């Protein structure tokens, strides 16, 4: 019999999420030539883009657009707006603006030149967050009901470099042993079992055979079957890492953000698999259950990567136009 009952509280159940409507309250542009917009993705650029010199932020705020609910326990004059800027590369946040809403009055435009912020590089892009919170002089005694750190409205606008949330990076090394350096392309090395705490690169290394790297790069850029081959190499690695991670994971607590466990849970969602079910099967005493679950996982990973679909569209027998 179950001795413990768990309850979940979702964000939408919190009082502070139902204060009123903030539609039209804030809009941002990263280019003074462009009109401000409520769209949260400002831009996605390749690494090397000079965000610092190319972007001039315009933030438009309009407190008159806020419509608080009649039964809201908070009044507009209790609130302030805060604008903060985050440098993604340095994990650094700077407060740009703090003002009581009632002191702003109508629509106001605020401009910020990123290149005036010497302490930031913005190499990986930036985030501009606009939030509404309780004014400093309105703090309450009971921190759980109302603390100045709580927000009644938050909107994040992002400009960042494009990057894949990869499950692993390949470490290209000399395999040494001729049996491996002549015949093995990729292999794994497990470093730590704390998969729910540590990020993937501290838990498992995917090692690539340095001797074959140039061929690997050529294969990667082969438009006919390069991706198909690479996906086939990735399938067993992804299956192995997922399987082993779930075996080692601590399911009693939420995993640390960016830990391997955290990444694998996200992957399981994409695979439409119940991670807890896979974990139970991976730890099952019955070897038949383990083998069949691993086989199913492998098939799902193939499906996610569409390896069959890729094979179906490969053209054989020459590439001359018909």
């Amino acid at each position: 019999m179950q001795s413990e009952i768990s309850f979940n509280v979702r964000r939408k159940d919190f009082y502070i999420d139902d204060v009123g409507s903030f539609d039209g309250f804030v809009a941002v542009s990263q280019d003074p030539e462009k009109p401000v917009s409520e769209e949260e993705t400002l831009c996605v650029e390749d690494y090397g883009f000079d965000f610092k010199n190319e972007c001039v932020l315009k933030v438009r705020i309009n407190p008159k657009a806020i419509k608080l609910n009649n039964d809201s326990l908070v009044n507009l004059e209790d609130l302030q707006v805060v604008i903060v800027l985050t440098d993604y590369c340095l994990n650094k946040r700077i407060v740009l603006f703090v003002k009581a809403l009632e002191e702003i009055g109508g629509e106001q435009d605020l401009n910020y030149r990123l290149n005036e912020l010497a302490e930031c590089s913005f190499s990986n892009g930036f985030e501009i967050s606009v939030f509404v919170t309780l004014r400093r002089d309105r703090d309450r005694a009971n921190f759980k009901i109302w603390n100045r750190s709580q927000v009644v409205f938050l909107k994040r606008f992002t400009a960042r470099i494009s990057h894949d949330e990869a499950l692993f990076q390949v470490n290209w090394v000399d395999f040494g042993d001729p049996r491996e350096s002549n015949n093995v392309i990729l292999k794994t090395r497990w470093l730590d079992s704390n998969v729910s705490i540590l990020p993937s690169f501290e838990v498992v290394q995917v090692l690539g055979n340095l001797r074959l790297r140039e061929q690997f790069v050529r294969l990667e850029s082969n438009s006919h079957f390069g991706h198909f081959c690479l996906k086939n190499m990735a399938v067993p690695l992804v299956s192995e890492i997922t399987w082993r991670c779930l075996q080692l994971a601590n399911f009693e607590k939420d995993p640390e953000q960016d830990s391997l466990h955290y990444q694998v849970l996200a992957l399981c969602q994409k695979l439409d698999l119940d991670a807890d079910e896979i974990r139970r099967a991976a730890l099952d005493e019955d070897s038949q259950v383990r083998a069949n679950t691993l086989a199913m996982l492998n098939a799902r990973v193939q499906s996610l990567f569409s390896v069959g679909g890729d094979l179906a569209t490969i053209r054989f027998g020459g590439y001359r136009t018909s």
Partner: protein
Amino acid sequence: MKYPCLDLDPAIYAWNARASGEDPSFDKLSIYASGSGDDELTDLEIEDFRRDFENIVCPFMEKYPDALPKSQGGKFDALIVECVYRFFSEILPVEALSDLAFWRWLSIVSSRGYFWEFLLWRFPNKVQINWGIAPPADAREVYFLRAWLRGHLMYDPDLEDPLEYAKKGGGDVWRSHILRQEFGRDREFVKAFLDYLEAKKLSSDELRKKLIPALRAWTALGSFAHLTYQECATLIENLHNEGL
């Protein structure tokens, strides 16, 4: 000042050459200069840094000649912060110090591989990310960049020792609970957090299983960016004692 850079492919080659006990061939490195100005950072300037660095490293290397034990990692990482931060912040702008290509050059090529050897001693499991062989999104995981960043984020000229907070806290706390966390972006919060850890002497379990989950859950509801040190300190204590 211009600074030397090493791209990813030559870095992989050079890393492996050093791992095989060879000096990488200069022709294959394609080192290039970035930045602006007439001066250029070279190994000559790095020698000044190396001298200060060696003064810190040598006692540890004498005691642990094969590799630095994990138990000493946090203490050691805190000791080098000032030396790394002060030297590089004086000569290069933040843009250069956010550039992985520079840290790759420093970690793998410069000083005839001294820093490559040092990193191997510090990270005997050879995870290449520590040498800068990493995607840009993982820049904060690169060892020397991380050491400099601790100083850069926490430097406070109003304190008797402006780097007081940069030196507080072990390597694991910084890596897992500050640099990888959203709440690690706010300096006053980080100060209060480090003071709280020092005062309470929390066990690793208490930190990972109680305080950090409570802080992370709170982040979903709010922001620490605009809070004072005292407000952050009170909030941390409340969340630790009472949970969300």
